[in-house]
């Protein structure tokens, strides 16, 4: 089930899995003025810009490989392998055909558990991100390649080297979604063991990214390595980096998470923020809040792109699309998954309950540790009360209640309606673009690319060709500036 069971669950599936610090709890805070006017267009490393014709602001698009939550539907004849390279090739080719900015891989460092056993109802098993992306670099030409990699269970020197290698081998298309992990559960797979408390996690992540940047900056432009030394609260390292400055200077850095710490981390250190999708008003408030934090770090609003994770359901008519969307939600919540969702709220074994029967009338166990590798949000009692009220009001069974509280897909409609809605979202400063999360592997974005992308292009809302070769150029991000050049 969705790892954020404090329901109603947000409509965007968790981008990087519960154990890897995807967008966490918390909704965008209201308030704050919306920035006005079109975004500044920055010079790309190749001297071109992403400025669209007529000054029209264009959106950025990314393709998320389906994850290991119940939002990925495997009980479907069209669902193919989650691990075979051909599946990654398929989605990457689709994304590049659609001129997407980048392809995105999530990460999990421990299989999730429920009731002390490995969770067996959802898609399970995925490859190590950076290695798959290096292989995809061989079968794609322009598509950005984004890996989610944890800062808690890696070390800056080694990871900076792996990311710089990806940037070289892909000709400047690498991105890094820097996530953190809080649980000792995941730590059991690592030397480091243990875990860091929330504040430590973020301070380590911030220092980690800063250290990686020092390493990426350590060679001169004419290819001479210079020794580096970093002494901070979390890392005390020195030596010489083995990789020359890479084509992008620094791989693009993504931060996934909506919490206050996450926003601040993004404002200080990231190029892209991968956020939860919400309505236009909440989106605008979030957008204004995050963009407003940039100035304090000497950055301009356009230096950080805001890209919510979204789901899209298409139909030939609005009614057909709604029907299709409901069908997908039903298939995402099997009877077994419905019981499991309820167990995550109640914190007790509910296997004797009938998913087609009523909700439990007992109260949740607040101290339960039934679910491991997932983030438990909110007050379980409040959620249970909400669910029971909904069930009573609409006469819903346990499973129907779970389906009802599963968030609606973000954009549902005809291709024209979806294109218009997405365009409006970006034009009104609720986002700079979207990370599309399909529910089927690997063909889940085929329809979007074939039917919606051309309409976005007609509207002038999306590029009609790649202008640059690097991901930074696709995103219109400025070249990273070396400390020496800052004056």
């Amino acid at each position, binding site marked *: 089930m969705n790892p954020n069971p404090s329901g109603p669950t947000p409509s965007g599936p968790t981008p990087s899995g519960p154990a890897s610090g995807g967008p966490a709890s918390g909704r965008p805070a209201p308030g704050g003025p919306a920035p006005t006017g079109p975004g500044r267009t920055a010079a790309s490393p190749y001297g071109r810009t992403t400025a669209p014709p007529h000054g029209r602001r264009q959106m950025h698009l990314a393709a998320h490989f389906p994850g290991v939550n119940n939002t990925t539907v495997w009980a479907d004849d069209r669902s193919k392998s989650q691990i075979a390279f051909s599946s*990654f090739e398929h989605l990457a080719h689709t994304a590049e055909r659609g001129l997407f900015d980048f392809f995105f891989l999530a990460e999990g460092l421990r299989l999730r558990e429920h009731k002390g056993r490995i969770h067996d*109802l959802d898609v399970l098993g995925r*490859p190590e991100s950076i290695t798959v992306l290096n*292989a995809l670099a061989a*079968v794609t030409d322009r598509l950005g390649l984004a890996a989610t990699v944890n800062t808690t269970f890696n070390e800056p020197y080694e990871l900076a080297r792996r990311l710089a*290698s990806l940037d070289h*081998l892909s000709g400047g298309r690498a991105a890094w979604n820097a996530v953190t992990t809080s649980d000792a559960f995941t730590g059991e797979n690592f030397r480091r063991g243990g875990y860091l408390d929330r504040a430590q996690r973020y301070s380590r992540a911030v220092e980690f990214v800063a250290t990686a940047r020092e390493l990426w900056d350590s060679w001169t432009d004419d290819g001479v390595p210079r020794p580096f030394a970093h002494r901070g609260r979390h890392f*005390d*390292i020195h030596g010489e980096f083995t990789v020359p400055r890479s084509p992008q200077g620094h791989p693009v850095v993504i931060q996934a998470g909506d919490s206050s710490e996450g926003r601040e981390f993004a404002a200080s250190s990231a190029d892209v923020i991968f956020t939860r999708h919400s309505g236009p008003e909440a989106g605008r408030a979030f957008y204004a809040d995050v963009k407003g934090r940039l100035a304090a770090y000497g950055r301009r609003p356009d230096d950080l792109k805001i890209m919510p994770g979204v789901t899209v359901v298409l139909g030939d008519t609005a009614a057909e699309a709604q029907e299709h969307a409901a069908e997908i939600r039903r298939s995402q919540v099997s009877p077994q998954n419905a019981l499991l969702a309820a167990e995550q709220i109640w914190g007790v074994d509910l296997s004797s309950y009938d998913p087609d029967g009523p909700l439990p009338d007992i109260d949740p166990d607040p101290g339960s540790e039934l679910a491991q590798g997932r983030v438990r949000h909110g007050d379980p009692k409040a959620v249970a009360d909400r669910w029971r009220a909904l069930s009573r009001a609409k006469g819903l069974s346990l499973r129907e209640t779970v389906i009802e509280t599963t968030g609606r897909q973000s954009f549902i409609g005809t291709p024209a309606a979806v294109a218009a809605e997405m365009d409006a979202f970006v034009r009104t400063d609720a986002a700079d673009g979207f990370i599309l999360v399909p529910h089927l592997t690997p063909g889940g974005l085929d329809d979007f690319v074939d039917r919606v992308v051309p309409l976005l292009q007609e509207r002038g809302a999306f590029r009609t060709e790649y202008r640059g070769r690097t991901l930074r150029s696709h995103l219109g991000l400025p070249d990273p500036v070396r400390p020496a050049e800052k004056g």
Partner: protein
Amino acid sequence: MSASPRPLHLSVALEHPRPAARADRPDRTDRYDAAHFVRLARLAERGVLDFVTLGDSLTRPGLDALAVLARVAPATERIGLVPAVTTTHTEPFHVSTAVSTLDWVSRGRAGWQAEVSTTEAEAALFGRRAAEPPAAAWREAGEAADVAARLWDSWEDGAEIRDRATGRFVDRDRLHYVDFAGTHFSVRGPSTVPRPPQGHPVTVVDATGETAGAERAVREVAAAYADVALVRAADPQSAGAVRAELRELARAHGRDPGQLVVLASLPVELHCSGDAVGLAELLGDWYADGAADGFHLRFADPGRDLALLVDGTVPVLQHRCLLRRFYPGATLREHLGLPRPANRYALAREAS
């Protein structure tokens, strides 16, 4: 005519033995672009070689070797891909999943050459622990190889069931905790990556032993965990002696010595096709002397020497029936004549 001899195994190192640090120099000998490595790997594949290795260390100028060979994988079809992976400062869990993923993206052509980091300079790049003496570092590399293989086995081949009736994607009875506790690390498992196509990607260890203290440790690691052992030796007799020792040690570890492929690792410099023919004769002689099951060649200049090998040495060896003319299989294990390993946890479960 005598019966055809058993063909020898042939592999080459892609890295330049003397990397130049400066990226801008016209004579730079290390490379940062994918095309260079793709070209070399394709050349080796044209020569029907078993595999290529790519050296790596945390202080040597160059890209991450596993990354380079992952980039090469979709651009090649049959050649085995064996990057060096250091184990001293890396998380063993990450080593296991990265090598496993290389096997997935290459569709069963991955190996890894386990390496250690023993200098203070390498330790300072991490700042987590002091440098380990070589023998201790190799013992830990053995633990890393051990846990990597356990993690590869932690998913049984049939674990993914996609059973719609019960709503179960996997049969969790066929997923296993490894609960490994080593000297310096522990790993709970299971892996996050399903069992790779080869079951276990091929584990390679340079069993030469650089220092007296480490020689014993590295040979124990090779005998216990390696599928392929590399032996640097000056003459066929000393190579053959190490091969005999490794086979004996493997037997002592309860292994079939026939499943440990020992390759003599030789420095090679070719300047003309005459040199390439001479090399074929030398390899044939070493092989006839029982020095090794095949060879791992370390070129003075891979760009030049590999082309001469493929066009000059390989045809002579093929003519003498010492080298295959085509790839009979698709995986690196098939090239090496090694079976796909049984899964230890499946065996234990079936036995109970």
